[in-house]
């Protein structure tokens, strides 16, 4: 089971700023280990973010995203106290869902 995401969500003016760090190796499938064997690809493929019960972000990612991915977004109309729920799923079917609450600016 992958480590929990680190999520920060805070109001800045009219917008909620959301930053998330996901613990994930993001192996490209192009690297080889010391014995010369190819290391299997292992990377996050799908990400979704819900704020206040509405889906605001939905995306897909490939192998050109850095290890332990960090993403930042801004959402207009969200308010302090709204729940932020973030999901990811990788190419091996592993998944995580973590949540936080938007704090006042």
């Amino acid at each position: 089971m992958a480590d929990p995401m680190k999520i920060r969500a805070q109001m800045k003016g009219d917008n909620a700023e959301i930053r998330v760090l996901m613990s994930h190796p993001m192996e490209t499938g192009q690297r080889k280990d010391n014995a010369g064997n190819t290391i299997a690809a292992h990377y996050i493929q799908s990400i979704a973010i819900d704020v206040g019960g509405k889906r605001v972000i939905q995306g897909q990612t490939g192998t050109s995203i850095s290890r332990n991915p960090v993403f930042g977004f801004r959402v207009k109309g969200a308010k302090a106290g709204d729940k932020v729920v973030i999901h990811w799923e990788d190419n091996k079917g592993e998944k995580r869902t973590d949540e936080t609450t938007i704090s006042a600016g």
Partner: protein
Amino acid sequence: MDAIRRTLLKGAGAAGAITAAMAAGVLKPSGALAAEYNRAAFEAKDLANAFRNIGAGSAADNSGIVIKAPDIAENGAVVPVDISSSIPNTISLAVLVDKNPLPLSSAFDFANGALPEMALRLKMGQTSMVEVVAKTSDGKFYKAKKEVKVTVGGCGG
């Protein structure tokens, strides 16, 4: 729930789909992520194929797309990039690294107040153009690019 991603990633019939889906209440959040990964686009080995597979084969240059990235990245494994689009009704942004083995890094849809912008960290194997594609709600695609010089690549072993 799949509607948002499908309109975005497939490129076709995007125009009213999201609006219609919202009206119909289809865009309800769900714990489950939609299943249909755009494998053709993410596994495309060259830029032209990646563009075509996200539906952006004929994207026009547009200065409303802003790419903030370092001119020189010392570590290609982690290249911080901020992107945004001031093109009206932008609903989706994709980021591609021309010279990576698999150029398409990500494609994200924005809805329900999410601003068409994002911060992310790219892996870059070598000096390359970073290209951003924006899609608008009428199904049109726009693009912009910025070169990032890489001193140590991030894709090797």
